[in-house]
Structures are given as C-alpha cells and as structure tokens.
C-alpha cells in the first residue's frame, strides 16, 4: 500500500468530451505539489473528480489515497478519509451560520472515524483561534456561510475550514483567483502554517504568484488533459517568463 495520493492513468469525460487523458500523479505525505496550466487544460476537473463532485464520468484509471479506492467513495467518505477541496467558487448557504456549519462538519468527520463529538466549548475556542490566525473577525463566524462575504473573505473562509477540519490532503482550486496581493499573502500564510510531515497539498493555480508564498516541492504543467512537464519550484518561475505558449502549440 502506498501512502498519500496515487493517480494512475486517470481518464475523465464530461458529456462525452474527454477532459483528462491519462493523468499520472503521486503525492507523498508532507509534500506540496502545484499544478499549473493554461485555461481549459483540466486543472479544476482534476480537483473536482478527486473530491467527488457529480457530473464527471471516469472512463479509466484509478485514484487511491492511503490505499483506499477514492473513486468508489461518496464525497463525505472522501472527507472522512482526509481529503479536502478548497473551492474556487465557495457556495453561499443562507440560514446556516459559519459556526453551525463547521461544528456539524467536525462532528460528522469525528463520527465517521468512530470518535466522540467535540465538546462545544472546546470547539468554539479552537474555532476562534484558527479564525484569528487567518485574520477573520469573530462576526464572520456568526454570519450565514459565505453570504455577503467578499471574494477574499470567501477564500479565507475556505482556509479556515481547512484549518478546522485538518485534512491529510488539501486541494486548493485556484484559491488565488480574484484575490489582491494582501489576501494572497494571508491565504499563503494560512497554508504554510498547516504544512506538516503528514499533510500534503495540491495547489492548483494559473499564476506563479501564489507559489512565491507557498513554495512547492514539485510543479506539474497540465495541458490538454495531460501532465506535460514536471519539475521543481524553478519550473513555476520559468513559466512566469515564457507563459504556456510552448505547451499549447505542442499539444
């Protein structure tokens, strides 16, 4: 059994159009991988398929996490396994406060893992501490989930969820999109504070900028549904100079 995420020859279609054409990717515990690539290359599709979003047809290949067949699992089972997706477009849920939502999620995960529910006071204390680290004001915890949040607040709220739910693998789907440089720094600090030997990250981004703050161990370039190049952090910097033109013409 291989620990961490192992993707083997993953092929995915949406409405009979093949988006991912054989992805191979292994992320070991503690590592930060980045996936870069032009628009429409399949970056978000990869994130969605790993997290179990409906609407995608897996036509071949496999995804395992710590040896478990992820593709056979429901989204909530994947979460219990330790997978987390920070949404590119976080969903607004009127009438459910941030706190209620997170408490429900934390206790659902604990239940799935055979653990006791968290003491409400201990939960609130933990939640406030995490929120403070992300510079989220207390009143945002009382507001309905993402309703009326600015773009930056929504992304920081995703980072708060990640901090509270403490996944083994966090996938950040273009978390930097629509953020100004200060917000990117806060998000990156949130991620860096979470880096640990048993937590890995898959950072999906269009721009190299985020990777100045979250320095990846490995960078992949995804184009036309395939990983076309893999390298170190310097690959991201090189792409910033040359752009994606090489890959779009080659493919």
């Amino acid at each position, binding site marked *: 059994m291989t620990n961490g995420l192992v993707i083997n020859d993953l092929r995915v279609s949406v409405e009979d159009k093949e988006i991912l054409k054989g992805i191979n990717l292994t992320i070991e515990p503690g590592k930060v991988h980045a996936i870069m690539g032009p628009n429409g290359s399949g970056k978000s599709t990869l994130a969605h398929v790993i997290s179990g979003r409906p609407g995608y047809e897996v036509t071949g290949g496999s995804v395992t996490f710590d040896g478990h067949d992820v593709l056979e699992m*429901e989204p909530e089972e994947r979460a219990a396994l330790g997978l987390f997706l920070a949404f590119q477009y976080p969903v607004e849920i009127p009438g459910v406060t941030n706190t209620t939502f997170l408490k429900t999620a934390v206790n659902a995960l604990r239940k799935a893992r055979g653990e006791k529910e968290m003491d409400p006071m201990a939960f609130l204390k933990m939640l406030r501490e995490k929120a403070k680290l992300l510079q989220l004001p207390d009143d945002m915890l009382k507001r309905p989930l993402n309703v009326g949040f600015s773009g930056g607040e929504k992304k920081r709220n995703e980072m708060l969820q990640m901090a509270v739910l403490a996944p083994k693998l966090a996938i950040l789907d273009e978390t930097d999109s629509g953020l100004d440089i200060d917000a990117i720094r806060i998000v990156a600090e949130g991620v860096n504070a979470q880096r640990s030997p048993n937590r890995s990250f898959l950072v999906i981004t269009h721009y190299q900028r985020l990777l100045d703050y979250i320095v990846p161990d490995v960078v992949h370039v995804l184009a036309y549904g395939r990983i076309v190049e893999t390298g170190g952090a310097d690959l991201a910097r090189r792409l910033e100079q040359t752009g994606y033109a090489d890959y779009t013409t080659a493919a």
Partner: protein
Amino acid sequence: MNLIQTPLLQDYAATAAALPGAGDPRVAGLREAGAADFRRQGLPHPKVEAWRYTRLKDLETLPFGRAAAAEAAPASLAGAGLAAVAARVVLVDGRFAADLSTLPAVPGLTVRSLKDCLEAGDAAVIAALDKGVSFEQAPLAALASAYLEDGAVLAVEAGAAVEQPVEVVAVSTSAAGPRIAFPRLVVLVGEKASLTLVESYTGPAHGAYAVDAVTDIALGEGATLRHYVFQGEGAEATHVSAGRCDVPADARYEGFILQLGGKTTRREMRLRMVGSGGDARINGAYAAKGDGICDTTTEVQHIAAETTTDQVFKGVLDNRARGIYQGKVHVHRDAQRIVGNQLHNGLLLSRNAEVDCKPELEIYADDVKCSHGATCGELSDEQVFYLCSRGIDPASARALLLHAFLAEAIDLISDEGVREAFSARADAWLAERETA
C-alpha cells in the same frame, strides 16, 4: 353554482336551543347569522376564487357530526412544546377544560371559558364576537358561529404586560365516526397592554377528524399582541381556521403561523389596519408531505394612513403535497403613506409537489409602498455537494439546508422561547421525513 351537500347544520335547530346563552337574543342572533351565512354559501366551492386551490374533500364526503363532550382523555397536552408558559388553557374538542388547564394568577390577565361568558351575557365578549367582519367566503367560520358554544376568553387589562407566553392548547380526541370541533378564542388586549399568545392545535395521529377554529381579537390603542399559532394536527385531520383582528392606532400585531400537520389545512388571518401608527407582521412557515394540502390565506386591509404590514412565508413540500399561499392587500383610498410587503418562498422536494401562490394587491391610495415576491425552487445540488465535501452525509446536508430555509421565517419570531419551540417542531418534521 350548486351548493355542496353536507349533513352539517342539519341538527342546528335542535342543537342551538340547548347551547349556552340561547335565551340571549344577542347570542342567538350570532348563531342565526352564522347559520344563515353557512346555508347560503355551503361548503367551500372551488368555483369561489378564494377557495380555488383548497377543496375540503373529507368534509364533502365523510358524515361529519358535531363533536360531543369528550369521552376519552386527550392523548397529549404538550401543544407546541414550550419550555415555560405563564398559563396553559386546554380546550378539549373545543370545550374549556378547567381541570386540564394550568391557570396560576397572572397580574393583569383574566382567563374564562367562553361558555361562562355567553351565559353571563358579557358585553365585551359578545361585541368581540360580533364586530362586523363578514364571514363572506369563510363559510366554515360561519358554521363555527352557528354552533357557538365554548372556547376560551383571554383578557389583558389596560397597561398590563403579559410577556411570558399564554398557551391555548386545542386538542381533539378520538371519537367513533368523524367529528368536527369548534374551538373558539376571544382575545381582548387593553390599551397599551401586551400579550404573548400561542395557539396550539393537536389531535390523534390517525383517524379522520376536523377542527373549525375561529379567533377574534380586539386590541386597544398602543397594545401589542404576539400571536403565534402551531398547527400540529394528526395525519388525517382537516383543519380550517379564521382569525380576525383590528389593529388600532400605534398598536402592534406580530403573528406567526407554523403549519406542520393535518391532511387538508387552511389557516386564514384577516387584519384591518384601522389606526395610524399601527404595525402588523404575519409570518409563517409550513411543511407538508404525502397528499397533504396546506393553505395559508391572509387578508390585510389598510384603512388608516401610515400603517405598516409585512408578511414572510416559507413552505417545504414533499411527495404530492400542495402548498397554497394567498395574500391579499387592500389599500383603501385614504390610507396614504402605508407600507405593505409580502414574500412567499416555496421549496419543492419532489417532482409531484406543488405550490400555488397568489398575491393580490388592490391599491386605491396613491402614496404607498407595496411589494410582493414569490419564488419556488428545489434544494441546490451545489449546496448539498458543498456540505458533503466537508464530511456531512447527504441526508444531514439536506436536513440542514431545509432547517435553514424554514429558519429564515421562524427566526422572525421575537419571543425566544416560542422561536426555539417552533424551530424544534420544524426540525422534528424534517427528521421524520428523512427517516420515512
């Protein structure tokens, strides 16, 4: 248009002579007027616009008779499940049950049986029963008046504040053959007085029965009434009700109607804004499943200038259930500078569920702010997936979203204890649905 035939009222002549206060021409007159109204209109007919969406099929087809004095004890007196009340008045099959009620002395509050008031010929009570609001298009309210017998009279003296809820639990009992009960409430709130009132309707979980309830409210100037209704009837119940309230100058009426039970239910509330500075809210939430029909009908008359009304209703419909919201706002010619808003949101959990929403605005003044909005939709897959991706199972995710949907209405209840109890009742309905 032919009247729908019904055995109801056939025993009227024999019955009325034995009812309390029969010798008092004012009381007998109320009954006569009700009987005449009902004979003229018959059971609600779908060709009458106000009853287009709600047909009282069981009343049309089953041999309903007037409920006699209870033979069996009520199954439960829990009502809305309030943690604390100032007093609890129990009506069994419409009749005041002093032995089952909890009536401690509450400063400024008087609780009497309607029967006693009718026998004593209480002028204020009779006036409240006969304040000239027509029962046109409310034939069941007319029927209830024909059988006017008992119920509860709550009175708060001028200037007194009864903040903790007074609950009236109207409970139906099992009886041989389908029976109809007529719980009647008279609520008198004096000048600058305030009252928190909860009406709760419950009955046997199974078996057909009917409740025909009427609530007459008289508010003094500057009075405040928080008027909350919990309709938690049994699965085969027919529940029809009519409430009437005049809101005078600087008075405040805050109403909330929670409908979670019954097979065919219709709650009507009629408000007349008769004094400047009057403010009224009628909000509500409902949920229906199976072949349930859940109707909420409101009628607001803005008669005086500078009056405000606001309505927010939210409903959840499962299976083949139908939800109906009819909201009529009539702004009279002299009612300038009024505000009248209404909003209805329906959530359909099944392809076969239906919502019929009919706002009606009739505006004869030219300086007014009126609005109405209606939406009808399904639970969002995006929202469900978002919650599931955080580890919440789909059933819990849907329950959380439905709770949140109804909570947006329930949270408008200003009394915290009532808000919590109503929220718990709604959650219990949702939990039962998930396990069904």
